[in-house]
């Protein structure tokens, strides 16, 4: 049971029950404001009937030509509101918006160790498109999966033919620059 609405600046003051979760990062203000100012419709929030924030999704749309795609930057659900299909709801919302913006696919990065999330994305129709080596820096660097799902505009599903080899961060930057 959810109210879906755009994330607003004021929500930054009250998203703590979600952001205290250890897998949810609290970014600097300029990160949030950048997304809010640039892709406001890609930053959505799920609110419970009592007004609490249940979770939110933050994303963007970018790329040229057939690389024009939606991207999920962050997706998080409060521990109190798990196992209710909320993540799927938020993902569908983002896919929907991307469809409306005529994007070819949606992609996201996820920690290789985050089995729960990978499982969920697979169930939602995402495939592991490629592995990015040492994408997450920290005490111990960790690889990321770049997962993708084609949208209706990509009729031939060209965007989801997976790479056979993992790529490095440098290669990723290179590819992004060319696109």
């Amino acid at each position, binding site marked *: *049971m959810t109210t879906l609405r755009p994330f607003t600046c004021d929500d930054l003051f*009250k998203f703590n029950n979600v952001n205290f979760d250890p897998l949810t990062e609290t970014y600097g203000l300029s990160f949030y404001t950048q997304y809010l*100012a640039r892709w406001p419709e890609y930053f959505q929030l799920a609110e419970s009937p009592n007004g609490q924030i249940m979770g939110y999704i933050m994303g963007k749309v970018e790329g040229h030509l057939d690389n024009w795609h939606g991207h999920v930057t962050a997706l998080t659900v409060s521990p109190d509101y798990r196992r209710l299909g909320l993540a799927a709801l938020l993902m569908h919302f983002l896919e929907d918006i991307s469809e409306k913006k005529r994007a070819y696919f949606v992609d996201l990065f996820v920690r290789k160790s985050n089995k729960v999330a990978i499982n969920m994305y697979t169930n939602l129709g995402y495939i592991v498109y490629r592995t990015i080596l040492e994408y997450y820096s920290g005490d111990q660097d960790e690889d990321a999966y770049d997962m993708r799902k084609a949208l209706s505009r990509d009729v031939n599903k060209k965007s989801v033919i997976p790479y056979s080899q993992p790529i490095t961060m440098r290669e990723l930057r290179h590819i992004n620059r060319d696109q």
Partner: protein
Amino acid sequence: MAQQMDSAVFERRLRPVYDNLEVGNNRKALQESEKLLKKHPTLLCARALKGLSLLRLGRYEESHTWLEAVAEEKPVDDSTLQVLSFCYRETEQLDKIVELYKHAVKQNPGNEEMLAHLFISHVRVEDYKAQQAVALQLYKVQPKNAYYFWSVISVVFQGIRGPESMIPEKRKLYLALAQRMVDKHIKEGKLETEQEAFLYLHILKLQNKYEEAWEFLNGELCAKLYPGAPVSMKFELLKELGKWQELNTLLMQLLEADHDRWDYYKEYLQSCFELLKVPPSPDSTEPEFTLVSCHEFLLRIIESSERKKRGPYLARLELLQRMRVAQLQPQQLVGDFDELIIEYFRLFGDKSCCTHDIALFLPSISIEQRQALASKLLLESGISSTSLPQSKEQMQKHICALQISRICGSHIELPVDHLLAFYTALKLHYEHGLSTFGKNLLATEMGPSDAYALLAANVMYDITLREMKSDHLFEALCLLQYVLRNSTSNFHVKLLSLKIYHMFGCLLGAQEMYDYLDIKQIQLDSMGYVHCNLLPLSGRFAGARSCYDATLKFFTNSYKERLEYIALTYRFYTFSKMEEFMDFKERLTNSLQYVACSVETQLCDLVTCYGNLQQNLSAYVAMSIEPADDRISWHELSDNRDLDAVVRFDPLHLVDGTAERKESFDQEVEVLQVRSLMLRLFASFVDLYHPTASAKFAAPNAKEQAQDRPHKTETATLELLRESWIGLFQRLRLMNYKPLSNRFLVNLLPTRLHLLLEVPYEKFFDDLAQLVLDFYTGDPQLTLHCKAVSDNVLGLKDLCVQTIDASNEASDGLWLRRNQQQKVAACLEILSLYAFLLSVLNDKIQSSGKTKIKKKPNADNKTCDTPQPISEKERSQMLLELMRQLKRKLEDCDAAIRNWKAPALPRDLNSFMADMSLKPEVEATLIGDVSSTFKESHELLVTELRNLLKDKIRMVGK
């Protein structure tokens, strides 16, 4: 061509300066810019960069001179302008950026980039009228839609936010103009983007032109440009237009497609209740609307859902609740409330959100009914005092039923022995759940049975409050610490532990929990209330400073960036977010947490300063306190606390979150009044003797004022502030604030307001003001006033020593510990400030005593009736006597603190976890760890306070 080459060359030569600035190597940047200026002394950009380097190095006055000189040359090249406007942004001289670009644009009227900069410079100062003009100029130079709509939004803002927005006719005029501008564009077929469509709808709505908005929203153009228009916009318009039937039909369609949308159900139910009010029209063939069809619709959704969704069930309960409010009889149509709740509980009781869901509907029934319902749910969960959950789901249901019971007030009246038995049961359930269902828990997951322990801690607090002793709460703390070892990511446990540590004055434990929560960025504002705001006067000064630092760093950064966020919405063309960003800026810059933390940091620095007098004074000068100038916008202060982050299941009828928020905020504002006025009053004491100290670089106006001011008003600021000080305390006593309720563990801790009223702050600083004035004028009453102040010092010393004695004698070392530490800290705060002041006075009076050049302004005696002012020499001796007395009293305080014992902890620590299946070694280390945290915390406190005293004794010991 030659010029272009030049600029490329210069670009290359300027590079090292930029690079060094970027990595923060400001000294090197300065050297590089000077090197460059030797060769090209007139290169404007290099001069500007030198100004920036100086600014970054904190050499403000020099920087100011350099930048002024560059600005006077009226630069027009982009790089110099960028550097200058960057500097002006840093120094908050936003109007200068406007001037800068105004001139540059005059020189290059057709330059799009310059004009865009000029536009943004107007955005920073919120000059909408000027924005409009520049945007139109831009559109003429380059007919892009973006520029056209920049001017449209600037017109809109003149109507709704600008200085004229208060005049209804003006507002109307501006909005009509904005609409005409867009209408014209539409007619010419030039509308291109969804944000333009949004803005048009917004303009129509602002003028209450809902019909037109509705037509546009449903038109072809809008569908093409704005396919993602939120459906809520339709709801809003239909409601404004009173088209309830249409709204009702639309929502039924939407709900049939999506069964779980609360926003839709809420609107749907509203439309149903509105339709009820519509009188049946005689010629309509449609049957009269009744709630029967609404109920049937919800039932249909329930039956057609494959997977059980909460939506329609909650909607049915909401229907029932609304029928009650409307004094209709829901029983017949919807059914029995208890049965509906029980059905809901059967279906969704295994989800952790079930408690929140059910709690929504409890207000509509009486307390007795609530408690009866809670018993039914407990029964329904299938767990009795003799059975244990057989599955994780059953356990979650049990937890939900227990949480609801607490919310319904079922536990609150129980006798202590019942509560203790309940606590034991919760502890056992926790342990059982952990060992049965908590295996292979990921480090990032919460334990499945943690909720039992959270409830247990709340129950223990209830007992503690009744018995007024700390044993049980200490036990709860140990239990929470045990849970935290098993489930390292449970932030509820950390928040509750943090709270209990603060209640017991254990700052080390609190700091550990705070670090563990990893509070950062905007959380420093919204969650500052759990720790940072509790630190002032908690017992440690230097220890608190690092927490203030981290908090202030966030705030000063965001303050600098605040206008760039708004500029961003213009650059990205996001009209839908502009007002939101502007309001956000206000909320952030007026955060009470921000202002309070700034004031506390300054006070803390004055209390703890330990250098020689010159060092201390320059540290004081760097704070640039302007006693005469109250910089706080009291009416705009904003409460950004996220109080709901701390979960609570306390009885609904005993908790009023809104009232608690308001009361605590009001008191915090009063505390800030006292603290900020104390700071300014104290600064006025210092400034009287070191007037140079107040003449600061950054405040040229103040400098002029000071020069304008005739001699006789040198003491005017001090006297005025002293009056405000007395007036403030009079008002506070009249207001008769009550300490915040400590009824439940989750409630906020009391504010410092009552501490500030109890410890003699008022009298001390009032008498001190008199003393400072007397010393200045040599008033014959000086002797008397010296006596008053030394009596106050004696009183503070006694209070400090007595408080520590009481603490040492207490059999329960924790119950009053926080309050005792606060009192001691308050005494030492006052005495430390006094010590600093005496050292300032001493410096002045000794030196003027020696040189005899200074004639006191008020000391010119016209008649011989006026008693002679006390001579410099006598004053000097009196001062020395005050210093000697303070030194002795500080030594007495030190002796007491040296003998301050670590808090006595409850004796039978080892028995309390005996009934849990804990391994003995776990039990031993756990209790040992918690106890040693208390001991270490005490030792740190003693060491820090004694260091503080040592510094102050040295300060007055000369």
